[in-house]
């Protein structure tokens, strides 16, 4: 797998709400920048509820 393929896969997984479990376990107190955080940020900035995860292309 090339670097750009890994980046694309990582983005796709994050957009589907998946976070690498080992990464969140390692962080003390859990991760701050989670998919839920960005959903809330989107709602705060745009004033619209976060997009349904099924809407994400791919």
């Amino acid at each position, binding site marked *: 797998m090339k*670097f*750009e393929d*890994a*980046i*694309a896969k*990582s*983005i*796709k*997984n*994050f*957009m589907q709400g998946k*976070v*690498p479990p080992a*990464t969140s376990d390692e*962080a003390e107190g859990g*991760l*701050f*920048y989670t*998919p839920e955080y*960005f959903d809330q*940020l*989107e709602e705060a*900035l*745009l004033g619209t509820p976060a997009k349904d995860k099924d809407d*994400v*292309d*791919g």
Partner: protein
Amino acid sequence: MGNVFPDPIVGANFTSNTKNYPWHRPADITDFDPAVDYFIEKMTDPEQQEQVFALLEIETDVVAVVHSLLLQAISKGKIAIDLAILIAGPVARYISIIADESDVKYDMGTSDDNRRRVTPTSLKVAFGILEDDAPAELVEEVMPEEPEMGLMGAQPEDAVTSASPDEQSSMLGMTDEEEEPTDGLA
């Protein structure tokens, strides 16, 4: 005189300075959240934001933009490659949010619509393996052989057409009928 010994000298790696490049040194940021923080902070810079939006407006997808941002940070020694892969998702999500906020249309680039589908037939064609029961459109049609005939060559028998006896006798003027002139000279 050319280089007589083109290969590296054995053990040269032990004497060379491995700290010449930023990516040879330990990365500045090693944790997930500080790394995402770094990119969010970077994206608040109006100049950086303009560049990202300009790329999105010329139909560069978010994956390609994130890819270039991460490579830039790796080359500067800010983050390591494995951490870059981990934070790609949050960085892409943040870019999509600020693009929405600024009404910039974008494509995530994670769709695999353009992916070429692999089918048994396409694999057979790729490897040059075609079975006897291959689909009809892939089997070369055998056409009947055209008779080879040069300009002066003898025509095949079935190609020779001869005039009927009546036609031949009329051409030789051996008919009883008299021809009447049609040009009004009679």
